[in-house]
């Protein structure tokens, strides 16, 4: 995620009529978007596709192997695994996106602030960042999860606390290098306010790289949500979620391996899609 160094990116061109054509010409990006689109479409259409309710139990037909009736078999409570797998995509993707919004905005803003004004603002922000970095990551995660009870709330709070750091660092770096350019100085002599320069002129140049980082960060977030589920402090039942499904299925790994393998593969699939989009965007913007 820190592979794209700042000077390679100068931001998207303002002329947007060529955007679609450029996307079509960028196979990596296109592939990623298609993969994501398939998943999102499935997640939206699942009530139509599947005749099953994700929480409808059948205690007399549990742990069935895959069949024409149940494409991926049934879980321990006799629920259709395929249906749950796709409903879990709804849960996990929604949380993933929502949990990234606030850290992304605060991170970008603080990073610009630190990079543009420097001095004590920069010092304070980087002291806070350093403190978080020196903090054992799981200590924060587990404590927040324990304090807020298992579930989505814990995930949101955790990421509000730690998620912004990555964005702040990236944006700060880009902002510092932009600030040294002449046009910033001339804008200042023209009497434009710092906030105006930041939002009107620096932000558009910072965003592309931040968005590329966002894509990889989302993969990490997804993996983290799933890992919390594995540790037993993730999303609470009965909401379907890939992490809980993996850990529930772990007990049956030798007898019904698909129970935990399929949700695992779903995570990997989503990871690939997001990475491709990230790579594609980086390609796109690098070539102007």
């Amino acid at each position, binding site marked *: 995620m820190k592979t794209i160094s700042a000077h390679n990116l100068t931001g998207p061109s303002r002329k947007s009529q060529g955007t679609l054509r450029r996307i079509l010409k960028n196979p990596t990006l296109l592939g990623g978007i298609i993969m994501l689109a398939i998943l999102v479409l499935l997640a939206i259409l699942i009530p139509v596709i599947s005749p099953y309710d994700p929480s409808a139990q059948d205690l007399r037909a549990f742990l069935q192997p895959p069949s024409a009736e149940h494409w991926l078999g049934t879980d321990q409570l006799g629920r259709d695994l395929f249906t749950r797998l796709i409903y879990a995509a709804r849960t996990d993707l929604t949380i993933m996106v929502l949990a990234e919004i606030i850290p992304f905005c605060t991170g970008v803003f603080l990073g610009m602030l630190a990079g543009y004004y420097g001095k004590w603002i920069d010092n304070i922000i980087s002291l806070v960042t350093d403190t*978080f970095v020196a903090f*054992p*990551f799981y200590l924060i995660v587990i404590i927040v999860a*324990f304090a807020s009870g298992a579930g989505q709330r814990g995930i949101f709070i955790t990421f509000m606390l730690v998620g912004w750091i*990555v964005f702040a660092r990236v944006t700060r770096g880009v902002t510092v290098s932009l600030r040294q350019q002449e046009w910033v100085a001339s804008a200042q002599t023209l009497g434009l306010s710092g906030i105006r320069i930041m939002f009107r002129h620096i932000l558009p140049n910072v965003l592309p790289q931040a968005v590329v980082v966002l894509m990889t960060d989302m993969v*990490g977030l*997804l993996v983290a949500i799933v*890992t919390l589920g594995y540790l037993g402090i993730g999303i609470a039942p009965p909401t379907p979620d890939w992490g809980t499904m993996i850990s529930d299925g772990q007990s049956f790994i030798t007898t019904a391996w698909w129970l935990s393998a399929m949700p*695992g593969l779903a995570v990997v699939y989503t*990871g690939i899609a997001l990475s491709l989009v990230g790579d594609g965007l980086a390609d796109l913007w690098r070539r102007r």
Partner: protein
Amino acid sequence: MMNEGQVLNASGPKKRGSSYRWLFITAARSFIVIVCVMIAVFFLIRIVPGDPAKMILGEYATPEALESMHHALGLDLSLGEQFLRFLSNLFTQGDTGNSIVSGNSTRVLIAERAPVTLLLIAMSSVLAIVIALLLATLASTNKNKWPDHLIRIFPTVTMGMPVFWVGLLLILLFGVRLRWFPVGGAGEGWGMAYSLILPSITVAFSQMPTLVRSLRAQMLDVLESDFIVTLKAAQIPSRVILFKHVLRNAALPTLMLFGVNLSYLIGGTLVVEQVFGIKGIGSLLFSSISNRDFPVIQGIALYCAVAVVIISLLVEIVSWWLDPRTKGKS
């Protein structure tokens, strides 16, 4: 997000006029960071509902037993008093007190658990670096040929693999089915290194994607630079170019990244230790949080903060040493 952190403000000594001044600022900064961490941890872990006495005595404990346990642990004091006690202990003894659960000194507990975790980190780091170097070299010298494509796919696929999931698969295949490696735990001496092979591979798996990507991109940048093109034109053997010039120049940003990964790993081996049943710092952290063993949690946080500060310092020194610009000047 797993590689959240980044090296402490990596401006490095090169910028500063006086290296003494730099040293002083860095030391002061590190100290403040450590103190901030300790204060944050102290209050954070007390916000969480849960009572250490109930965790020790269990659900059937009588109120009297709980009360005497609270008194013995000093938990009947006010938060302020507890904090003062904690601070004085920290500065006079350099310790965070004795474990609530076992009564042992936190320092001893950590010293017992640290070797296996440090060995795990060391082994996985060596593994990750060696493999990343190999793959990145292979990819960048064969740009847009099949080895490059294969290697570029690698991080894309592995990025989304949860560590515990990889560990689980490795255990099933190499531990339970093939029996090449122990499925878990850690032996003594050489046995320790042997039993840490699977966990190291698992950790390396999570480290490699970013390393391979970064190193490949950097090497391509360098390979395509005018400097290298000139060297090539001068008929200098490509092996010499690769090792003497390309790698050295490309290593710098990756080193930073590696430092980030390392800082994360110091307190982040928890999941791997849990999956492989390794009694290291990570599993100690997990059980201490579950038991609300406050002194041990604080001790681990202290240990992690110090380690991270040292790592970032080392990274800065090494990158200063590697940086060709500083070399040119001296």
